[in-house]
């Protein structure tokens, strides 16, 4: 009789422990799958964020455990700013269906961004149909002027190729104007407490935008300032343009149209 009771009690205890263990394992499994789902979401979020800031900036913010409202200090740097804009965009936007216009613009943004990335630049922001890019803002780059001009030449080639595709679809061709200037500024995450973006702020960004506007006057597609010319590889073929006044500067500005690179010595790699 006693044995029966003891056996029954042991069985009950084993059953209770077994049940508890089973519940605990299920709970653990549940928590693990939640954790994995959270990690996957975080991963997606990180990938989405990396489209909003230069490559590496998001990873660094995460690695440094940067809290909302704080951020790495902005630093003084000398960087090269490139501003590219579509010529005649307003007229084109009135003629095309919104869906078609959006597709054409996406193709343009992608090709311009690829050319900038390929030459170690960072896309700062899209301003309407314009793009601001920086060279040497996130990491030291003593070759930033050459990089910016190479990127501009790659953009020219990319637009030519894109125009071929647009022709085949019966869509209007695109043309671009590019302005490049170099100078000191402040680089880092900037903005309000709730919304920040990685930016390079300095006079050279404004000058690049205004030099870009001069491409319409001089009927060329790539213009650089004297500061850029002084640092540029002599292999680039430049043509001096007449000095023009630009807003914010007292003296007229000398600019140089970039034709091409004269030497064909470099094998194309990558």
């Amino acid at each position, binding site marked *: 009789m006693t044995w029966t009771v003891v056996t029954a009690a042991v069985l009950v205890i084993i059953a209770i422990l077994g049940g508890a263990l089973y519940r605990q394992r299920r709970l653990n499994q549940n928590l693990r799958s939640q954790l994995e789902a959270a990690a996957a979401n975080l991963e997606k979020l990180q990938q989405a964020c990396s489209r909003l800031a230069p490559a590496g900036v998001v990873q660094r913010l995460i690695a*440094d455990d940067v809290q909302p409202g704080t951020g790495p200090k902005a630093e003084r740097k000398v960087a090269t700013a490139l501003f590219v804009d579509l010529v005649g965009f307003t007229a084109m936007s009135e003629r095309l269906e919104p869906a078609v216009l959006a597709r054409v613009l996406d193709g343009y943004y992608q090709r311009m961004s690829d050319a900038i990335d390929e030459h*170690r630049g960072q896309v700062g922001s899209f301003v309407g149909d314009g793009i601001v890019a920086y060279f040497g803002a996130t990491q030291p780059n*003593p070759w930033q002027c050459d990089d910016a001009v190479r990127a501009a030449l790659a953009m020219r080639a990319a637009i030519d190729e894109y125009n071929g595709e647009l022709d085949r679809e019966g869509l209007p061709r695109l043309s671009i104007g590019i302005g490049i200037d170099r100078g000191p500024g402040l680089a880092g995450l900037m903005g309000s407490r709730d919304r920040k973006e990685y930016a390079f702020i300095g006079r050279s960004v404004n000058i690049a935008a205004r030099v870009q506007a001069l491409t319409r006057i001089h009927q060329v597609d790539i213009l650089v300032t004297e500061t850029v010319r002084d640092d540029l590889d002599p292999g680039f073929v430049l043509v001096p343009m007449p000095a023009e006044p630009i807003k914010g500067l007292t003296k007229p500005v000398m600019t140089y149209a970039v034709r091409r690179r004269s030497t064909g010595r470099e094998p194309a*790699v*990558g």
Partner: protein
Amino acid sequence: MASALDHVAWEACLLDPRRDRALESYARRKMGMPVPSIRYFTSVPWFARALIDLHPEYGLLMHLDQHTADVLTLVVSQENSCRFCYAAQRALLWAQGMSEARIQRVEQNLSRADLVPRTVAAIAFGRSQSRVGPAGAQEALQALRRAGFSDDEMKEIAFTVATTDFLNRAFSIPAIPSRPLEQMPEQMHMRLLRPLINRVLQRHRFRGRATPLERLPSYPYVRLVKAYAGSPIAPALGQTIEEMWASSHLTRRCKLLMLAVVARGLGCQVCAFEVSEALQREGLHEPTLTQVLTHLDAPDLDVLERLLVRFARDTIWFEPAALQRRTRGLRDYLSGPQLLEAIGVASLANGLCRLGAMVMGHS
């Protein structure tokens, strides 16, 4: 085993593995177990040996505690997005008996402020050297001193960071497959062998002992090697540099040009000066050197030099997949051993220039 670098894009490997029994047994003797990745590097023996001889786990550190060295390796590999080295370091922690959960806690702790100040300072130093290079060296060294590190420990921290920068590039540029290491903890036979692997690893990971510096390498980098006199780091570093110069797949001038470009890109004045002097001894005129350093091109350069100065520049700051794609393009112009030697020289240049700024500026 999910890791923080799972999302890092990694191209197909650029190199073909080739067996070399002598090198494989050298690696096995030194590290205690087969090192399959060494087969990718056997066509340039100095490079393969450097991967083993400069590894900070095996008898090179006399003063710095192993935990700080392990954390630094993990942090720098994370900064450089080297999937291979990160997976190797994780596999090492796993083999030492750490659970996946504990490894993840270690990774999460790398960014937490409640670590002991010494570890925080060491992590900050590793990050700053990988991100900004020599420009931030003095400030980061001051932080290490404030955290209580001795001069000898600081030199070993600098070496650990620089050698990890070298190893990261050596494995990242040719996209050495990381999957076997990442999958190791999931394989049943590896789980069964785990205690044995741990014992072997423990036996082969040993502290360095004072070692006299018997031979100095030829100029440049003599000062750098001398800065480690008395430590086993000095002969290891000296021998690697000497063997690199002696290898004939690329000319000495081409290697010096690559070193000069990396020194210029990182802004390391000390290395730039020494390498420039060495280039002038090779007969390169100063205007040509100035033009190369300013524009990565000059009429006096041959096709190979022109390609490799640009390649060297690409290795200073990089996204692994983009650099791997660019390096693949070089295969049309370089033989297999030339390409591998170029990867070795560029990787070593990045390590040496960072180390030069940290140690020579410091001493």
